[in-house]
Each structure stands twice: as C-alpha cells, then as structure tokens.
C-alpha cells in the first residue's frame, strides 16, 4: 500500500497515455490539417479558420464515389465469405484430432509479407487465366483476413462444450436444430467478430487490392493515386472522414457488445 503502488500506477498510466498518443496522433493530425481551408499543410491557426471546405470538395471528386462503393462491396463480400468459412472451421475444429496442425496451417499465411502474397496471387490468377476483377480482390482479401477471423471464431467456439450438443441431441434435436438452437446462439459473437474482421481488414487493405484489382479501383488505391499524383488537401478530408466513420463503427460495436453482456447479467 502507499507510495509504491502510486508510483506503479502513474507509470502504468504514463505508458498507456503515451501508447494511445502514439497510435492516434498521426490520424488526429490528419484530421486537424483537413480542417485548414488554405492549401498549406498545417493545423488551423485560430478556431475561426476551421473549415469543412475540403470535405465539401470531396463530393465533387469524380472517381471517389465509385471507389467507395467498390471498397464497401469488396468489404461486404469478404466479410460474408470469411465468416462463413470460419464458421465451418469452428464446426469441424472440435472433431479434429491434430488440432495443432490445423492451427499451424491457419496461422502460416500471416507470416507471408503482404506484397509477396499480392504478387504471387496476381501471377497465379494470370497463370490460370483469371482476369483481375472485384472478385480476385475479394479472394485476396479473404485469404488475408481468414487467419484473424478464424481465430476469433475458434475462441467463441471454445466456450461451446460438446456436452451441450449431446444434450440437445438427447432431447430430440436433429443436427440442424442443434445448430440453430445451441451452436449458433452461443457462437454468434465469434461469427460476427469474424465478419467484422473481414470487413475492416478488407476496407483498409491496399497492396493486394492494388495488384488484383480490375478496372475499378478500391478506396485505398484511389487514395494512393491521389497522394502520388499530388492532389489537393481533400485527400486529408477523405482520411479524416474514414477515421471518423471507423471510430463510429467501433463505438457502435462496443455499445452492442456491452449491451449484450449487460442484459445477460441483469438477472444475476
């Protein structure tokens, strides 16, 4: 008790704040300079200088809506396919005898650098005569997101004791009813988490999209192009917009999860 724990506490807090700053400062900086109306890259001097000029300018960009739409579609498809595949993995994992081999195979792609994965996929698709399109991007993103998503799903499946399924079968459930009544409600969180991972990872992914995209670029490719081509500060507005939307989505997810946990505790 006393001074030693206060010292420890303040160290802990210092580290936490520094870490959070380190993570958020760059994006917050971008957000700040996006509100500067002049073409200079700086934080607005006074409060009166704050302007949404570049945000409004965004709406006049020709190629932007298409890129956003493409990113969202790719993201949703990735989310759907990834969560479905991780659900299948979760279902079979408990029956596996060499569980560690499965996990090893699953984790392995994580160690392949993004650019290597992107280029090899691009070469592979060309080899089997598949043209670059939205679907090749989705495939690349599914492969990318699958390890993360599956781990999330497997964690939620670990809370599903085999005994529950046996009890359900004993009471009269067919395989389908056992899934609908027992497995799904208990692993819903993991499947949703897998979908979320799939969507978010895909949305922000650049290198695979770059190599596998067809004629329609994704948002990250568009932004890369803008940066290379020396565009106006509306690019910062786009970054600020993406940041705001991401934070908003994460808050929504947090509220959703804590609401679930709260409602299941309210009877305790």
């Amino acid at each position, binding site marked *: 008790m006393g001074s030693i724990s206060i010292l420890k506490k303040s160290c802990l807090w210092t580290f936490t704040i520094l870490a959070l700053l380190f993570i958020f400062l760059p994006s917050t900086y971008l957000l700040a300079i996006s509100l500067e109306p002049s073409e200079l890259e700086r934080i607005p001097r006074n409060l009166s200088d704050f302007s949404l000029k570049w945000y409004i300018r965004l709406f006049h960009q020709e190629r932007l809506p298409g890129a956003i739409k493409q990113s969202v579609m790719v993201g949703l498809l990735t989310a759907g396919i990834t969560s479905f595949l991780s659900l299948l993995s979760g279902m079979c994992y408990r029956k596996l005898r060499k569980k560690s081999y499965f996990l090893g195979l699953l984790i392995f792609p994580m160690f392949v650098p993004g650019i290597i994965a992107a280029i090899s996929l691009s070469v592979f698709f060309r080899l089997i005569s598949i043209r670059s399109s939205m679907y090749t991007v989705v495939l690349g993103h599914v492969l990318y997101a699958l390890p993360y998503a599956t781990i999330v799903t497997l964690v939620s499946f670990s809370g599903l004791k085999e*005994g529950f399924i*046996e009890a359900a079968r*004993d009471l009269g459930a067919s395989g389908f009813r056992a899934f609908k009544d027992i497995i799904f409600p208990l692993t819903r969180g993991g499947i949703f988490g897998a979908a979320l991972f799939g969507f978010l990872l895909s949305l922000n992914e650049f290198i695979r999209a770059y190599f596998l995209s067809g004629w329609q670029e994704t948002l990250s490719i568009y932004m890369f192009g803008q940066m290379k081509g020396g565009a106006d500060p509306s690019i910062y507005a786009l970054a600020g917009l993406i940041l705001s939307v991401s934070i908003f989505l994460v808050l929504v997810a947090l509220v959703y999860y804590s609401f679930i946990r709260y409602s299941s505790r309210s009877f305790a």
Partner: protein
Amino acid sequence: MKNRIESKDEIDVYLKDLCKRFGDFTAVSDLTLEVHKGEFLTFLGPSGSGKTTTLRMIGGFETPTAGEVYIQGELANDKPPNKRATRTVFQDLALFPHMAVGGNIEYGLSFQSLNKKERKAKALKALELVDLEGLYERKVATLSGGQKQRVALARALVTEPPILLLDEPLAALDEKLRERMQGELKNLHKRLGITFIAVTHNQEEALTMSDRIAIIDRGRLEQVATARELYESPKSEFVADFIGVANIIRGKIVKDNTGVKKLLSNGLEFFIPSRDEIGIGESVALVVRPERIEIGDKAKKNKNSFSVRVRNALYKGASLEYFVTLCNDQKIRIRVESKALPQEIDRTATIGWNESDSAVLKREPN
C-alpha cells in the same frame, strides 16, 4: 442381425456382446445384460472401468465396435440419440447457458406438437416434481449445484421417457446433499415407475438406490444381482472386495484326515461351506465378511477358530474394528458392534467364524 428380438415385454434394454475399442484400448468387452422394465439398475465400478462408455452406447453417444444394443426390443445401434427412447442426465449436467430454467426444461418439448402454453404447463409440472417450483425464470448461472442437478433431471423427465440414463448423477454434490438426493432419486423412481439406468463409482450410492447392481471392471461385467446377492454370494474376488469390505483367504482345496474338504492357505486349514462343484486341488478364495467374525473367548466355539495377534483397534462409535494377523501371516479385519464387546481385547486373542458365514469362489491360479 435381427432388427427386433422376441417381444419380451419385461426387457427395456438388452445389451448383447457389446464391445467398444478406442484404438488400442478396449473400454468394454463382451458385455451382455438385460435391463428389466421399471427397474433401477446401476453400473458400479472403479474409474475407467467402462461403465460410462456403456451408458453412452445405450444413449447413442458412442457407436459400439461390436455387439448390439436393443432398446424396447428394437435394434438401436445405428439410431442417433434423438431417435432413441432414452433421456440422459449428464455428469456435467450440460444445462444450456443461454436459456433460463424454463427454456432448458421445455427444450425437449419443442420437438413435439405442443403450443407455448402446453409446454409451459408441462415444464411447471416437471419443476414441481423435482421440488423447484418458482425457478422457471431463473438464469442457469445463478443456480446452486443441487438446483442445477434437479433442473437437469426435470429437463430429461419432462418428455416422459420410458428409460432414464444417469451418468454419475450425484458426483458433483457434497456429502449431505448427496445422501438426500439418493433418497429423492429412489422416490422419484418409485413414483414414476420407469426404468432408471445409472452409473456410479460410489458403492453406497449404488446399494442405496438400485434394485440391481451390475459390477463392471476393466470393461467386463463381473456380476449383476441385487445388493444382497452381491454381498453374500459374490462370484469373483473383485466383486467381493468391491462391495463392502471382505477378508479374502486364498489357497487350495485339500481333504483333511477325516475326509472333509478344507481350504489350505499358507499352512493353515479352514472349514469351508460345502460346494459340490469345487474339487480337490482347485484354487479358491474364501470370502469372510468382517462383521461375521467373532473375537474374544466366545469365538472359540466356532468351527473355524484361531489365535491371532491383534495389530490395531479402531473405535468407530457404533462399531469397533480390529486388524489382526493369523499365524500364517494372513491379515484379517473384524467389525464388532461396540455394545457386543464387554471385554477388553489384548495383544493376542481368539477369532472365529462358522463356515456358513463365508463364501467360496473359484479363482484362476496365479
């Protein structure tokens, strides 16, 4: 393989030459047993003896490697659990955590054509049956061990199955609660009149609740009989030793100089109950229960009476236990009612029993 056995209305479960192997390990071998309709049968045996595996094969959670399971006369080997007339109370209870008590109990009813009101009515009746009225809305996580146990029972019984399987039903309960539940399970069985098949490693539990007990050791059925038969006429050393305490004296059958068959063990001769099928020279084991042996001066009037060295004496309240050694180094354990022993027992004493108070078993010579 016939799909139906001859309609013996009294047999609810018939196991024929049942075997279960997991890779190299044989969990159950050549188990043949009939479970009578309406009886309370318990599989009793040490941990790992294969009794739970057998129960799971009856319930449909394991597929037999060989042999047949007949449930109510029909071959059930290929039937999944949801198509069998059995309901199981699992060892870990497996209550669904995302449903309340009412939801858990009604789950089995959701496969029948009942509406919401009917289901709830049946669930409430089942709760009454297990003494848990008022807990319909409660979340499973808030229940005590004993309450969870009863919910699991109610969940299985609400569908009115003809056969109830119980896997170590009282293992998770503390002693006082266990004793109470033993009585309650027995009453429940009497009240419902259905067939109960339980598995336990607790001898006392089996003796208290069951009509018949099937002793299982290392995957084999040793003996199936009533508690009394098992205690008084064990068919093997394992059974003799497993049910209650037994003194086991091993040796060979010899004829003494008056032509009487006796047991010769390590140089000492014992009178034995006469059994025609036991011949001279056979290896046998003599089983004498501790409470059938007398100690003290009055022991001398028994046919089998010996001087012993008293190693230890334990006062157990209602009874006294003596640990003695015969002159052939055979250790014997004796239990006497405290009030029946007026005298103090010294370092040496006499013990004795009549041959009618013992049982003879054949054994493989080893």
